[in-house]
């Protein structure tokens, strides 16, 4: 049976691992390749690299990290951040990524999703959707670049990008990111029910119970978490054991 996945996420900036709260106040938390090796040894099911390097010139640092990780960790890698062109996708796949995450560009350039899926296969095009809870509590898709958002409703936007060819969705609650308050289960469930592709919950996991909640309440295919694995004594090994006991179908052995 297909297992539910545990995916540690690593935020990268100029070749280093950083951690922030609500996408700001980033502090250095170490060497990403070292962190990736630890997660690999713990039997993480996949790794998610998100690059937030602002300057185009320093973007090469990302490729080096992906290459070095792929040389050392024989596990699935999803890489995103600043992906704007087919050439960006091609370079990341050649460096060793298995899937490429398109976030901001997906909002303004639907052709990128379409052509990316045609050229590289829909299974390697992942679209990142970030959302906030608006004043009336309604979930709304946001753009970090301040670009216009073609569809505010996360579920409808998720459906639209899958029609364009996205093979997977990473859904991140901006309000919860780095807060350890738990995933936004309600919005996540809406998105899971709206699309026929796998959905990865991101943003807010602070306890192992939060991971279980995402699987059992929102029925996601995978959970992504950063803080919980970086800053608490919880490891992927403990998470797997906890989830297994809770009845979640995770990989039983390494």
């Amino acid at each position, binding site marked *: 049976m297909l297992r539910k996945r545990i995916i540690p996420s690593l935020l990268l900036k100029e070749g280093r691992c950083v951690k922030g709260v609500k996408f700001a106040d980033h502090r250095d938390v170490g060497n990403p390749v070292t962190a990736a090796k630890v997660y690999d040894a713990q039997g993480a099911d996949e790794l998610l690299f998100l690059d937030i390097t602002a300057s185009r010139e320093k973007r090469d640092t990302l490729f080096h990290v992906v290459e070095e990780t792929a040389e050392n960790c024989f596990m699935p890698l999803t890489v995103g951040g600043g992906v704007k062109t087919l050439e960006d996708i091609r370079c990341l796949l050649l460096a060793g990524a298995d899937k490429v995450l398109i976030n901001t560009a997906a909002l303004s350039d639907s052709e990128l999703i379409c052509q990316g899926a045609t050229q590289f*296969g829909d299974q*390697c095009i992942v679209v990142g959707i970030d959302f906030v809870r608006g004043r009336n509590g309604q979930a709304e898709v946001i753009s970090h670049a301040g670009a216009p958002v073609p569809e505010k409703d996360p579920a409808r936007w998720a459906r639209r990008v899958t029609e364009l060819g996205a093979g997977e969705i990473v859904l991140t609650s901006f309000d919860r990111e780095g807060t350890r308050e738990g995933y936004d289960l309600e919005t996540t469930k809406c998105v899971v029910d709206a699309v026929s592709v796998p959905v990865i919950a991101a943003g807010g996991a602070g306890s192992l119970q939060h991971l279980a909640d995402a699987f059992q309440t929102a029925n996601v295919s995978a959970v992504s978490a950063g803080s919980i694995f970086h800053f608490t004594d919880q490891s992927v090994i403990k998470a797997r054991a906890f989830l297994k006991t809770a009845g979640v179908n995770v990989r039983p052995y390494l």
Partner: protein
Amino acid sequence: MIVVVDYGMGNIRSVSKAFEACGADVTVSSKPEDLKKAERIVLPGVGAFGDSMANLKKRELIEPLREEVLVSKKPYFGICLGMQILADSGEEKGSHRGLGWLGGRTVMFQLPDPQLKVPHIGWNDIKVVKDGPLWAGLGRKLDFYFVHSFHFEPKNASDVAATCNYGIDFTAAVLHENIFATQFHPEKSQESGLRMIRNFLAWKP
């Protein structure tokens, strides 16, 4: 020396690094003369069926591959697309001719349960139906990493080496004389995948 065939289809680097980590002397190449020198041939592949066949054709690799694998009987390891194109035809974005080495078709998942998501992404356990040296040392550690929307239905059921269940039973691996291929990615399947690669490197079909 083993050749990992480079025909512009995806994760060549991950595959060659995994084989190197298992002690193989790897040449990444698209040259027929390298295929001739190779002791073993690995055909990886991520992407679309039609593109992969078009790329093999453009690089004039189809005949040299046929020569080395079907005539000289060199051990062949196809991964993902490298398995799917063993079919006569593939139905990914139109209908395309495959290598046809094993016959059969590569088709999209039609799953009875609408709750099941496609692509089939993640770790799934397989059932070995044709045991042998390629599965040595794996014991019950038979979880491998899959990422695909299409699957291979070989013409002869006797070529199926392992199956996987995702709403339906589909072909996870095939074995026919010197041809071995998997739908899953051993180069991404941590310890179990590396073990399988080592088994392939030691394999004498």
